[in-house]
């Protein structure tokens, strides 16, 4: 019940965003029904689209876990982008280096490498925070730039560029035996790209919730996030918990970086369209809960993929999607407004629950 109540604001925010977005479409001289219809069909209208929607969603969901986990300890990890890059680099490096390994151990090592690299990168910010009080908004952000630039250096005719790359900034191919198995059978969709990283994402969500709610560590991290003074009073080593929370957060982001590389089977320069930044919005809309983030990530992924069809079929600019995303975020942020709507509509109890 509490979970349902917590979901009211985001759901209403989406509804309001669709209404306001529709007005925007109308004002620009197009038919909002057509726009939404083509977006919806474009997002989930066929097995292919559903598969692609998932592919757009998964990195967002994982990176949002990184944002949220840190947030539970009271830290704003806005540098998931950099942690994601470090994860992608590490996994790619391991995969290309150990390319003669058999599949299963290689996948596992790659996953571990991605999570370790992302975790270490975020851990630096956590350590700086604990030791010196350096604000994590600054450090995670700056570390993001560093990570992205490291990837440029590695890929633009750098140590990770293969000899036969002809000037394309990219890594060598991920060995095929390291690929995640495709999970859509070919009679549904031949050559589907949706792979077992979806299960990994679901597992990540379970781990996220398990740590936070089912372990003393999670209790301590949440206590630190909600009242560090009380946490210290309860004998919790606040500094250490901050570092651990950042490391775990970064591990989620590292995984988020590996997944898109394992779809394209090669690490391209600037491979992320900003998953780590978009993830902040997903975390907010998902209200920092495992299920909420999963659903919010799917929504954002659907909007991103659906925009392609909308632009092509309904001839409406894909920027509508960005407007919609902004509106969803705006209305989630404007909880007070939502509560006001609920109260006006006579849903007093819901309004209280949504607070």
């Amino acid at each position, binding site marked *: 019940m509490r979970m349902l109540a917590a979901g009211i604001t985001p759901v209403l925010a989406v509804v309001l965003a669709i209404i306001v977005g529709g007005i925007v479409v109308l004002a620009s001289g197009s038919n909002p029904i057509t726009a939404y219809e083509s977006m919806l069909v474009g997002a989930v209208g066929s097995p292919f689209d559903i598969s692609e929607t998932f592919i757009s969603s998964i990195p967002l969901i994982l990176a949002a876990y990184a944002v949220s986990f840190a947030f539970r300890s009271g830290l704003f990890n806005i540098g998931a982008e950099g942690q994601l890059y470090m994860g992608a680099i590490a996994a790619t490096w391991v995969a290309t280096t150990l390319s003669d390994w058999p599949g299963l151990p290689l996948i596992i090592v790659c996953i571990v490498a991605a999570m370790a690299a992302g975790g270490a990168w975020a851990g630096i910010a956590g350590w700086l925070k604990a030791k010196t009080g350096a604000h994590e908004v600054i450090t995670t952000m700056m570390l993001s730039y560093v990570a992205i630039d490291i990837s440029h250096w590695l890929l633009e005719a750098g140590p990770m560029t293969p000899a036969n790359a002809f000037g394309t900034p990219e890594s060598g191919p991920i060995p095929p035996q390291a690929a995640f198995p495709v999970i859509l059978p070919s009679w549904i969709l031949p050559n589907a790209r949706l792979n077992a990283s979806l299960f990994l994402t679901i597992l990540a969500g379970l781990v996220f919730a398990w740590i936070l709610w089912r*372990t*003393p560590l*999670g209790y301590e991290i949440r206590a630190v996030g909600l009242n560090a*003074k*009380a946490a210290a009073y309860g*004998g*919790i080593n606040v500094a250490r918990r901050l570092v651990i929370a950042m490391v775990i957060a970064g591990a989620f982001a590292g995984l988020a970086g590996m997944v898109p590389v394992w779809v394209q089977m090669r690490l391209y320069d600037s491979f992320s369209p900003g998953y780590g930044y978009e993830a902040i919005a997903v975390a907010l809309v998902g209200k920092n809960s495992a299920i909420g983030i999963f659903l919010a990530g799917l929504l954002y992924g659907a909007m991103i993929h659906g925009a392609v069809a909308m632009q092509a079929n309904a001839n409406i600019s894909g920027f509508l999607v960005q407007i919609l995303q902004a509106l969803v975020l705006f209305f989630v942020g404007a909880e007070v407004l939502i509560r006001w709507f609920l109260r006006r509509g006579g849903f*007093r109890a819901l309004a209280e629950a949504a607070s």
Partner: protein
Amino acid sequence: MTALVSPVVPETIPSATPYLQMRGITKAFGTLLANDHVDLTVRDREIHAVVGENGAGKTTLMNILYGLIHPDSGEIVIDGSPVRIRGPRDAIAVGIGMVHQHFQLVPVMTVAENVVLGQEPGGIVVDRRAAVRQVGELSERFGLVVDPTARVETLPVGVQQRVELLKILYRGSRLLVFDEPTAVLTPQETDELFEILRGLVAGGKTVILITHKLNEVMAISERVTVLRQGRNAGELETAKTSPAEIARAMVGREVLLRVERDEAHIGEERLRLDGLKANSDRQLPALDGIDLTIRSGEIVGIAGVSGNGQLELAEVIAGLRPVTDGHVFLGGEDVAHQTTAERRVHGLAYIPEDRQARGLVLPFDVKDNLILGSQSRPPFAQRGQRNSDAVDERAKELIQRYDIRPPDPEAPAQSLSGGNQQKVVVARELAENPKVLVAAEPARGLDVGATEFIHRQLIEQRDHGLAILLISSELDEIFSLSDSIAVIYRGHIVEVVPSAAADRERIGLLMAGGTIEGGTPSASQVAQAAAALANEPPGTPPVESAHQ
């Protein structure tokens, strides 16, 4: 300084029509009836106390009077004519002023600037000199000693409160409402405030005092309106009633105002502080070599004017503040450099002075708060996993034993009343059978019923052999609970006396830094003590008071 200077007794002039009448005030918040047909009648030029437990509806009633809340029904009559108060602006216009519990001052501005804020003298440019003059006159007229040119942030709390008072006097208020004004004051500042209140009444003002402290009601008010659970529970003449009667009306049953306690059965040494030194937050020495021993079965009370190191003492013992020198022996072992968690394992429990900022994680539910400090130990943690059954069981047991309300382990701590929040803290700290308890301001802000409950728990635990260090700024609390009293002054324990042999006046003087070689203190010593008690920064000469 009432205790030292003879108080001004106000001349009350009874009049036929009451100055203020609130009739049948009703206000519901959701399903909760905060005020249920409440009546309040205040005569002209009286000090009228409105008392009740937390949640009895006092603050709601006053917020309605001040226009901050709109009642569902009921009327307000001033001087015989009904008024409509739609907001604070209306309230000010009909002569009502309110001194809030949390001051609404701009810290970086001067006293005069704060007082005239919103009604500045002069045209486009504020006439600062006129402001200073007007505020000076006002403070002189009502005997409020305050320098109009001082910056508010440099003033002690008691003086800041006077600035709040000047603000409403400046706006010409006739009815002055004080919401728990003494909650933030030292005993001496409280005495000074009371003298000011008497002066105000003598000067033609009417005062409403919201409080739940019975000794204050008895000391200052002429009549008392008692509220209980949103309803009127009595209107009493102070001269014809007793604290016990008021308490009974407030709580609805007999209340023991003084805890009964048997003789202490003192056992072995549990906590020994040896030359303990520590710094304040500003890295200045706060504890300057504390020597103190607390044994099983006794309560040692630390008496002192706040700011003399009590807070730091509690934190150092709890391991939340580094020891710069000396030792903390807990059950014979030196724990001075152990972590808080290690000390907890060694049997240390701590009721912190601020339950909301330190004692509880307010958004956590009750059951999670009930294991704070034990969360990583069995039975609550097993093989890195949380044992939810053990957590639930502990919550169920403690909620029942301490009568925590509502009895819902999943209610967020922030939804509980202050008394129940404190019960959660106390229940948790006593649950692990500690050997030593540091109790800092255990009853701060609690009403009569909750205070009685907490005090009884402390006595009970002492009788079971717990060693308790009690830190309190309420001298009454120290005297009624402690077996011996240690006076702290500027980071030193000045003296430790058995409470049976302790003399209030002498303790007060020691708190102020006086040293007595027998005999009665001299007049200058008394003046010095009073100044120090009024929270003057140490070292400054006592300010000449301008009371007429």
